[in-house]
């Protein structure tokens, strides 16, 4: 008997090893277990919605509506708990990957649970507000899943085996070289170089971060000015121009990196605050129902 369990456990360990070797992400976790569960749940709701006879018509206030609403509200609170779970290191059976997988797929099923809970009756009220916030949270999460699946490859390609700090260090090195190389230049030529040195590589608002466009880049401007300048010693200037070219390239790599990271992170700035707005609106929605029972 004992050997039987032993063998079974060995097999389980082996399966786990295979999984890890193939790098099974949270989307494919356990052979799409949570996708299947959540799909089945949606199907169950859509079919039972059609079969259950609610008079005069489906709405959130029927027994069926209350059931869906309770499931939905519970699910929303559980989904929010991912933020707590991911900060808590455990070695439990429920790995963070499993938790994330369930979070994603059950979160998507909330589209059906929440919308079918409304009975397709929407209006300008706190009830529909809660639904709209829920949909925004889900859609931002969907965006997050998509970028997590697609952007890391681009991020890796752009990094070219450098770390973030190495990218910054490269820029610092070019700055130091520029500073000394620009010493012989005339004041007219040093001004743009000085501006390029004075430029913060992390400057630019959220728009620049997301678009990756920096039209007022001082390094690029310095490169243009010095390439056209005639005033200083040609050899010194050529050296500075060469260095500026390298700095512009290094800046471009850093900025592409920042852009990809911004695209990877921006959804959380919608997802998380709106989740808490949703929980507040959901509380108002539930309390209002019982208040004006």
């Amino acid at each position, binding site marked *: 008997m004992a050997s039987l369990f032993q063998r079974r456990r060995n097999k389980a360990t082996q399966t786990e090893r295979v999984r890890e070797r193939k790098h099974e992400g949270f989307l494919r976790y356990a052979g799409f277990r949570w996708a299947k569960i959540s799909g089945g749940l949606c199907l169950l709701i859509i079919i039972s919605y059609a079969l259950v006879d609610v*008079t*005069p*018509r489906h*709405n959130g*206030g029927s*027994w069926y509506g209350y059931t869906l609403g309770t499931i939905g509200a519970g699910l929303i609170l559980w989904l929010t708990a991912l933020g707590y779970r991911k900060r808590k290191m455990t070695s439990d059976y429920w790995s963070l990957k499993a938790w994330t997988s369930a979070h994603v797929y059950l979160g998507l099923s909330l589209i059906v649970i929440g919308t079918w809970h409304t009975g397709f*009756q929407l*209006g*300008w*009220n*706190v*009830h529909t*507000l809660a639904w709209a916030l829920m949909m925004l949270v889900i859609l931002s999460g969907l965006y997050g899943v998509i970028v997590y699946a697609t952007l890391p490859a681009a991020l890796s390609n752009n990094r070219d085996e450098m770390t*973030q*700090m190495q990218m*910054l260090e490269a820029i*610092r090195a070019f*700055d*130091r070289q*520029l*500073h*000394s190389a*620009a*010493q012989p230049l005339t*004041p007219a030529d*040093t001004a743009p*170089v000085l501006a390029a*040195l*004075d*430029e*913060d*590589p*992390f400057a630019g*608002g*959220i728009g620049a*971060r997301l678009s990756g466009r920096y039209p007022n880049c001082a390094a690029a401007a310095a490169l243009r000015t010095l390439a056209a300048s005639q005033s200083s010693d040609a050899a010194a200037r050529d050296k500075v121009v060469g260095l500026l070219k390298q700095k512009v390239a290094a800046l471009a790599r850093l900025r592409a*990196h920042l852009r990809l*990271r911004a695209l990877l*992170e*921006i959804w*959380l*700035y919608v997802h*998380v*605050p*709106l989740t*808490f*707005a949703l*929980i*507040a*609106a959901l*509380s*108002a*929605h539930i*309390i*209002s*129902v*019982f*208040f*004006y*029972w």
Partner: protein
Amino acid sequence: MSFILRRISTTKTGKQIVRDQPLPGDMITLGRDSSNIIHVADLAVNPQHATISSGDGRHVRVAASEGLGFDLNGRSETVADIDSGAGGELRFGGHRLTIAREGENVILLVERIDELSQSSKDVDEAKAFSLQGVMLGKRMGAWAFGLLMLLAFLVGPIWAWYSYKNVDERPEGFHADSTWLSGPLSSAHASLKDDCQSCHVEPFVAVTDTACVSCHTGEHKAMSTAHAGAPTAMLLAARAPDGGFDKLLANVGEVFNRPQGRCVDCHTEHEGAGPMPATPQKFCADCHNGMQGRLKAAGHPTLLADASDFGTGHPEFRPFVRAAPGAKLARAAPGKGTVDYNGLKFPHDVHLQATGGVARMAASFRGRYDFGQKLECENCHRVEADGVRVKPVEMERDCAMCHSLAFETVGGTTRTLRHGEPDQVVADLTAYYRSTPPARPLQLGGMQRRRPGAYAEGQVYSIYFNEVAVRPSRAQDAVRAVFSKGGACYDCHTIFAPQAGNSWRVAAVSQTARYLQKGWFDHDAHRETDCADCHTAATGSKTSTDLLVPGLRQCRDCHVGESGARLVKVETATESPCAMCHEYHSDGGQPWVPNRQRKVNAAAITNKPLGATYGVSLITGAGGRSLYKVTWRTPALHGASRGG
């Protein structure tokens, strides 16, 4: 006096090493160019930036040479005189020049204080490379949005409720709790849109009946006497025991302070603008399905038959009839062949035959009356102004076209016997025979003399005058003839012969205005259907005691249960919940149905063939009057004034 350039370098352990270097001359130059005495490798410093000199060995003059100045105590200067004893700090680009005095010497301390470039500054990797630096924090946003939601949609509405807690009617305008409105109110309640408290009086207490009847006073006094007057125990016994699931729902409702059996159980609200939805069948069938047995078992025996669904479980109609001549109106006993004594003799079959005397007579009247080749229902029966019921037949209007009561013509005007007044008929006939001589024979005409012995003429003479003498007594015979078999009255009425102290009498005629008292039938709603489609027995009816009110079977030709349940094959089904015919708040009027639903139902039966109607109009032309050709609709009458 001499200038000393001091440099300070810091070792890795933080220890400072000070190195002094005396500078030659009284005029010290400072700049980026290496030819300067103080060479500052700083791009923000000009090649020849400034000169430092001292006239008296105490005051130091710093003068900028090439346009670019320097900062002295935060202000931009081109020339500055500094008392070296007091000391001073000057700033050239990213470097600081400190002037101090030690003994006889002026110490010049030059240090780089700014970073070489922006990128050289220390960064917090986690922050700089992420969006943390450029976005408002997530936690901040979460708090801000969450509190905003709670304030606007929880605190605001509760405050609105609290501030109007003891107010009868809220003033116009926006109230924060209108954001809680879960759906538009029905049109009848639309004005309560901003006044949640008119129904939701207490917080966390489900809407009570008290809230409803504080406005709805009239309807609920009249609310179905059968239901309102019944003892509560009986009403509870009537209810079908809840199945497992319904019981669970009821229990859950109780736990959440939402008791069963309130007005709003049936009259649901916030289901969208428009009329309130009609009461669904379930709310009747909950009790009436299998109720007889339950009530009997509970000690409340009832004659009410069970009803569950019009298509499958509905008792046979029990119309209001007179079961014997002169009997009182009563609902027909269930399950028996029904007769109705209305006092008339009227064979429908003879009148509706396509051939025969009646049809021939009707055809001969074409042009004078709206008759076709034969009589149709609508030739004699007319609808009430509102179209719901059929008017009682009136002799003068509906029969007299053929059944004339004329007995004399005076100067082209026809005199008729007075209908409905037998004594007047007797008097008129008596007067007629008294006042008119018999027809005068021709032989008695002229004034010429006759010879005596003209016997034959005398025979006529004596016969005539004998007749004149007995003429008034002939009236008795005529009266008897009118009231006897073959006479005008006897044909249609039951006649009682004169008895002691009485003259001829006619049995009273009673036409029932509404046979089905418990349900509502609207002829107008069925105007597209031919009469004979439902009144199927009419063409075969030989006697007026035959009740021609259609039975359940005829209704079920089109009408099925609310959910379409049926026992027979139905071509165009009209789904019929209880409320289509029965009114819970039975005031005798029409059951309330939303407008939308009415239209749907009418459409469902329009595709019935109208054969008979076409048949008539083909012969008589478009001018023919059908039962509903007239403009019959008048402003809607109140239910009670329609009778019932």
